[in-house]
């Protein structure tokens, strides 16, 4: 099975155009759609060339009340990145679609100005002229001096690849929401302290005025008021009013976290640095502290030091004053946090979309392999991704059980999702019904058909649509899809009978904003926009958020059941049809757009939705059920059984016959390992930066490749590592030794959830404890007496170690006659790139892991079936299984046994205790290999 990134990588690297003809033609559903817009020779990257900037970047702009839309900063902060791209122009565009930035300072029927707790809105828009597509995140910050106290800002992720934006919408939205929440928290803090200052000023002013009035009263004995006195009184009154207003504002801003907390979806931004909190609370003014402010636990610390000023009755003219900068609007700590977060986003989304997607998918799949993933995977990679990522990756996989589980466990981050859930569950109804009627037995098939149908529709309509709605440079992208994709898991949770819910359809609402100037809002998935009113076509372009933020927020969160029940009534009959039509009219089929996407639909991804996101993950990855019925009985599930069989095909089978490229592509069905590590296999041009981990992997792969080619005894060395025998690389030159250690480290299984048991460079004599702890050691050879000592120790412990002498190029280790390592490390391999080789290794190792898993968790392989059964019978069965079913020969058995032992240890380990590391060894003779 071939999955997308491989194809892409090979096309690029080898410039191979023709399909391997020896293979039987792929079934229809696996075939790669041709690149729609490209003639022969056009490559999927050519599209990017149309854009004026070299790589994705983040733009923060503001709609200034003085000068209009203006760009503030870009991330990365490098003039080269936007290049010729017109930031001002683009700022204008993205700010102009902020339909919701309406603020009414004094709402009718309210005596005081009210603060709006405006939700962020998330918009995707495209501009074909600029060749730019952007995810735009609008937010408002409070500023006492601004009109209506608000300043609209937006953060935009700008990319040349619309698919990237569309497919990563959910992730982008989650990440940007975090950044926005951080910024807003800081802003609220700053705003509150500003208000307090202002209140002090006002208070001071009032005192001054009051005193003056008193003096006037005393001096005035005429019995009537002078105009001066009246003026003063008026002034005083206005100051009083102003005080009340500001107090009210302060109360509002402080009550914000409370209000938001009622909404279960709200996640107050929690600063990662508790120090800050401590310092803040240590100097906090007890009077000013509102103890239980969870979201905003920094009461305004520096207040006491402020000296009040007298406030003039007339405020300065709007245009005279200088507006605060973004930095001034926000608490410093939070501002830097936000910037960090944005940099993080920029790093995360760097690279081609198929790379990102593959990464996400593989990460999600890896997460599912909770039992075995510690063995060979980069643990940092597994951990680094926050729960949000899980929403992205694993939910998209449509893995019901897991998804539901993680949803239960993880609080959903935003309103978007709960609203989305409402929406998509509504949408799912018809399909679900169809399924039930047609074939309740095989929902997948039904789905598939439904998908195909839908796809076709979309495909057809997309062209029509495009011609209709695109003006000069207008582009319309149907993007409600992404919203529904993002909420899919929710709908699954609510509709367990619909295994892979239908792709969402755009709603009428998404068409509402048709801007004049060559821009169309492609999609609006803002939190508020998906409220039920959304169904009304005549949607006001500006929404007053207030009620939602206040009261109806809770009401919006329909319980899934309710929505399910109401769904039929609400959108029955013609309305439903209309919806469907609108849907297809609105959505531009992804497939039609022409992108590097199509290859991604190859291979194992059968249940795919329009986003090209896997609904059904590649089967072999799924670890077999626990308490397996039999060695190879296979589950009742036909597909998985078949794949399992393939998995377990004896090593001499199809896999082994192939080498290098074929093998590599073959083994990528184990995406779990392969994809976690895609480094530069499919980088977009102009995205030269590769994350550090990738670089390391690339180098390790390259070194490993060199090692395999150079040393004819690479196999026994690798076997030593895989079977848990410590390998010592002995040499005088630190660089050479370290290089070898790096190369070999990719073969070292982890012993637990800690760092790899690899020690790059030691110069002291080794002890037994070292072999317990390290499985790969780089050892310095010295001529000093200490060196003699060290060599003596090596000789002494020779039974526990294999010794690779880098200087004399010899290896002393046990014999290896298995077949597994030769597949892993073929010195005639055609693989040239380090990273490709690394992936190859990972895939073979993943296969090995699954074997070890199977072996470990087969009950009767380790325990007698009946009481009477002897231990020998169990041992025989075990060996039989290893040899016949897992297809292992000779020493390969030891590898799987060792991995199984690690799995057992990891599984039975109590979480609270670290567990003593064991040293397992065999009494086997060693041999000396020479070049």
């Amino acid at each position, binding site marked *: 099975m071939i999955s997308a990134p491989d194809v892409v990588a090979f096309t690029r690297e080898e410039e191979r155009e023709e399909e391997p003809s020896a293979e039987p033609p792929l079934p229809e559903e696996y075939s790669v759609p041709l690149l729609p817009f490209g003639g022969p020779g056009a490559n999927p990257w050519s599209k990017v060339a149309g854009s004026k900037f070299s790589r994705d970047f983040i733009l923060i702009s503001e709609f200034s009340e003085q000068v209009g839309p203006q760009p503030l900063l870009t991330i990365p902060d490098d003039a080269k990145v936007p290049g010729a791209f017109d930031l001002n122009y683009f700022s204008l565009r993205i700010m102009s679609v902020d339909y919701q930035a309406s603020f009414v300072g004094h709402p009718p029927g309210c005596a005081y100005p009210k603060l709006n707790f405006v939700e962020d809105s998330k918009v995707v828009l495209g501009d074909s002229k600029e060749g730019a597509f952007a995810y735009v995140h609008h937010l408002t910050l409070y500023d006492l001096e601004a009109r209506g106290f608000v300043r609209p800002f937006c953060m935009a992720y700008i990319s040349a690849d619309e698919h990237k934006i569309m497919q990563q919408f959910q992730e982008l939205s989650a990440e940007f929401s975090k950044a926005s929440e951080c910024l807003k928290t800081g802003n609220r803090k700053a705003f509150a302290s500003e208000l307090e200052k202002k209140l002090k000023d006002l208070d001071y002013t009032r005192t001054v005025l009051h005193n003056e009035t008193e003096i006037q009263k005393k001096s005035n004995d005429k019995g009537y008021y002078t105009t001066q006195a009246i003026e003063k009184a008026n002034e005083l009154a206005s100051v009083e009013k102003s005080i009340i207003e500001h107090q009210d504002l302060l109360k509002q801003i402080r009550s914000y976290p409370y209000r938001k907390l009622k909404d279960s979806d709200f996640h107050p931004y929690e600063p990662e640095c508790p120090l800050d909190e401590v310092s803040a609370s240590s100097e906090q003014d007890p009077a000013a502290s509102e103890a239980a402010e969870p979201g905003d636990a920094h009461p305004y610390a520096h207040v006491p030091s402020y000296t009040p000023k007298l406030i003039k009755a007339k405020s300065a003219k709007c245009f005279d004053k200088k507006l605060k900068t973004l930095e001034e609007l926000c608490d410093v700590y939070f501002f830097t946090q936000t910037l960090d977060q944005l940099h993080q986003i920029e790093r995360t989304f760097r690279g081609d979309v198929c790379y990102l997607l593959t990464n996400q998918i593989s990460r999600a799949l890896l997460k599912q392999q909770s039992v075995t993933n510690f063995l060979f995977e980069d643990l940092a990679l597994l951990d680094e991704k926050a729960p949000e990522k899980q929403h992205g990756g694993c939910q998209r996989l449509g893995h019901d059980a897991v998804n539901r589980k993680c949803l239960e466990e993880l609080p959903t981050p935003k309103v978007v999702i709960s609203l989305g859930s409402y929406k998509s569950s509504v949408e799912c109804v018809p399909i679900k019904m169809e399924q039930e009627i047609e074939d309740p037995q095989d929902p997948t098939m039904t789905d598939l058909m439904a998908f195909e149908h839908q796809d076709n529709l979309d495909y057809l309509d997309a062209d029509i649509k495009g011609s209709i709605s695109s003006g000069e440079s207008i582009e319309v992208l149907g993007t409600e899809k992404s919203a529904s994709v993002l909420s899919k898991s929710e709908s699954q949770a609510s509709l367990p009978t619909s295994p892979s819910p239908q792709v969402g359809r755009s709603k009428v609402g998404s068409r509402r904003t048709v801007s004049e100037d060559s821009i169309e809002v492609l999609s609006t998935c803002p939190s508020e926009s998906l409220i039920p009113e959304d169904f009304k076509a005549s949607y006001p372009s500006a929404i007053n958020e207030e009620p939602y933020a206040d009261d109806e927020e809770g009401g919006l969160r329909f319980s899934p059941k309710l929505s399910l029940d109401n769904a039929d009534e609400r959108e029955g009959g013609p309305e439903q049809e209309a919806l469907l039509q609108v849907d297809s009219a609105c959505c531009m089929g992804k497939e039609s757009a022409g992108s590097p996407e199509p290859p991604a639909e190859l291979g194992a991804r059968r249940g795919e939705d329009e986003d090209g996101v896997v609904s059904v993950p590649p089967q072999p990855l799924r670890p077999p059920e626990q308490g397996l019925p039999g060695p190879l009985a296979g589950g009742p599930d036909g597909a998985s059984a078949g794949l399992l069989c393939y998995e377990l095909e004896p090593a001499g089978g199809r896999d082994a016959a192939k080498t290098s490229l074929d093998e590599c592509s073959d083994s990528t069905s184990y995406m779990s390992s392969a994809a976690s590590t895609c480094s530069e296999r499919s980088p977009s041009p102009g995205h030269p930066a590769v994350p550090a981990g990738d670089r390391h992997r690339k180098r390790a792969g390259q070194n490993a490749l060199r090692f395999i080619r150079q040393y004819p005894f690479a196999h026994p060395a690798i076997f030593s590592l895989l079977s848990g025998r410590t390998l010592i690389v002995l040499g005088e030159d630190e660089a050479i030794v370290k290089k070898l250690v790096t190369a070999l480290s990719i073969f070292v299984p982890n012993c637990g959830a800690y760092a790899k048991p690899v020690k790059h460079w030691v110069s002291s004599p080794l002890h037994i404890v070292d072999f317990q702890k390290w499985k790969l050691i780089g050892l310095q050879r010295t001529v000093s007496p200490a060196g003699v000592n060290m060599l003596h120790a090596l000789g002494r412990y020779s039974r526990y170690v294999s010794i690779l002498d880098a200087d004399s190029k010899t290896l002393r280790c046990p014999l290896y006659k298995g077949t597994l390592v030769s597949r892993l490390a073929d010195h005639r391999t055609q693989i040239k790139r380090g990273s490709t080789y690394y992936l190859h290794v990972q895939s073979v190792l993943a296969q090995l892991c699954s074997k070890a898993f199977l072996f*470990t968790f087969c009950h009767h392989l380790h325990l007698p079936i009946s009481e009477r059964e002897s231990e020998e019978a169990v041992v025989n069965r075990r060996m039989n299984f290893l040899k016949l079913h897992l297809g292992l020969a000779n020493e390969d058995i030891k590898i799987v046994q060792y991995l199984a032992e690690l799995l057992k240890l990891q599984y039975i380990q109590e979480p609270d205790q670290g567990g003593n590391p*064991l040293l397992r*060894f065999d009494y086997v003779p060693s041999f000396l290999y020479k070049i």
Partner: protein
Amino acid sequence: KSSVQTIGEEQIQNPYTELLVLKGHQDIVRFLVQIDDYRFASAGDDGIVFLWNAQTGEKLFELHGHTHKITAIAPFFSSDAFGENDQLMLTASADRTVIAWDCSSGKQIQKVSCFHSTVKCLTVLPRLDVWLSAGSDLCVWNRKLDLLCKTSHLTDAGISALLELPKNCVAAAAGKELIIFRLIDRPEGWNVLEVKRLDDHQDNILSLVSVNDLTFVTGSHVGELIVWDALDWTKQAAECNFWDSSLHTDAQPEIKLSQSPNETSVQHLTSDEECVFAAVGKGIFVYNLQMKRVIACQKTAHDSSVLHIAKLPNRQLMSCSEDGSVRIWELWEKPQLLAEPVPTGFFSMWGFGRANKQASQAAKKTQENTTLYFLELVGDLIGHSSAVQMFLYFGELGLATCSADHLVILWKDGERESRLRSVTLFQKLAQNGGSEIKF
């Protein structure tokens, strides 16, 4: 010629294929003592006593109380008539104290510090429910740590070893002398009487072992081994310097001269019903009590002094040494005693002079010593980087070794451990209902 027998890396009969290093001690670990089926204690020069779980290697307790190195350790188990089991452990230290510990809680129960000299050995007499401490004098204590009686000052050297004998008697090794004491439990109180002094040994008595109710054996620094009657304390048999005379018959004289007395000292003795196994210098000797002679020997079993030796149930013998290794031996009957001279002629016929010489030597040896058995090396355990002081055999649970490199190592049967882990795994799986594995 005297090179150590070695075994290759292939050791089929060696069951120990897994090890656990137990870290905790900060100085030489000298003592290991078994508490029950799965617990043992280790103690050494750092004055700390650790209690370990022999199955998991878990550190159960860390007993701090002594300020100097520990000189003796003895578990004191007694089950009352009511089945009340309390497990005490007594430790004596160079700080002239003895502490009684509760093994189940790890608490110090009582500390006795009225000694005039370091207590060098502790012996528990469960039959009488008393324990003895011996240094320059001998004290008798009950389990509540009340001093029942004591002897006057005996020797400056002090008592280095104690052995319980029948009829409430105790043999104490004090320098070259073997002193027999009798404990008398009268209604008016306990008394300890010196009954006899035996001075048959030429040098310091290093080891004492009881073979059965009727005999016990002592060994001295110059390689004397004396078999005693346990009832009337008469010498039944003695092998004085027989190690040298009988075993170095064909050794070169200069080698003989270069041998320091250390190399012939009887470091440790152990016995089963038939034989006494003696760790003498670097070698191991098997002395048959019936035949009253050495039936098997391995002159250089280790690279340096053998420190501890034990008989395992399955014909096996285990020894540990200053060279840092533990070796497992098996005692085999020599298959063809009489057939041996035959090939001599055969080889000499073909002119294999060298073979001839060796064979004739072998023939000579068999004639002189009539060694009926031989010790075969079946495995060695290498893990410690310094002298292995002692080991403790736990049956199928494994083996604990302690060493001067501050470590205690638990050696285990890898196969068995693997099976046990599988059992645990499936138990845990059943408990969790598989919920931990997400498919």
